[in-house]
């Protein structure tokens, strides 16, 4: 869609459902992918809670974010980075997550941010 390429990073930091942040970030990610720009997603802080499996959001009248997230690979969005410390703090093991994720420590996160052209936060 555009000859210019910019690398985008979306930083997710919010838990799902309680606010629109997770869904807002997902919609932006899908759009960036439609524009065929290099894209990475980073899950920090409470956003790692988005990655827990087996949501059943119909119970609260919302759409199922884990179903939506499993769609990312259909959009060829495969750079999913996760803050290791955020997982540990919440007692989540990487094996609990059904998506293909890349764990990052603090310096890994700094390096990821450093190499981006644009960073959008949610």
């Amino acid at each position: 869609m555009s000859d210019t390429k910019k690398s985008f990073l979306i930083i997710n930091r919010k838990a799902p459902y309680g606010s629109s942040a997770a869904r807002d970030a997902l919609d932006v990610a899908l759009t960036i992918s439609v524009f065929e720009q290099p894209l990475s997603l980073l899950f920090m802080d409470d956003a790692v809670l988005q990655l827990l499996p087996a949501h059943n959001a119909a119970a609260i009248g919302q759409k199922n974010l884990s179903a939506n997230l499993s769609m990312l690979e259909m959009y060829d969005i495969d750079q999913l980075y996760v803050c290791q410390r955020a997982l540990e703090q919440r007692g989540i093991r990487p094996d609990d997550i059904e998506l293909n994720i890349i764990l990052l420590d603090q310096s890994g996160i700094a390096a990821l941010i450093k190499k981006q052209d644009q960073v959008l936060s949610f």
Partner: protein
Amino acid sequence: MIFSIVVTGAPYSSQASASALQFSRSVLKLGHTIHRVFFYADGVHSGSALAAPPQDEANIPSEWTALACEHDLDLVVCIAAAVRRGVLDENEARRYEKSGHNLSPDFTLSGLGQLVEAGILSDRVVTFGA
């Protein structure tokens, strides 16, 4: 330098829109360009033409309008976020069979592609979040 600005907080609920407004004024004053201001999530309420704050408070939506008129700014409100929250232009009101519309004429409803395009074409994207 080419800037784009993203606002995700609603005026009067958060400071985001007011900060973005001040920042935008400085960007323009210093001779830079604003490619687009994109209102997303609760930020869409900045586009309401019906906001009526008390006279001794800032009217943030109309301040955006004034700035846009003066500098020919592209103020884009995310259509999906806006329609959900009841911020509609005439066209969407017709599309969803609603009795009224409230988007200020100086704002445009458009898709998230406008945000991504702004990111591609701008040197800096600055987000004012809530």
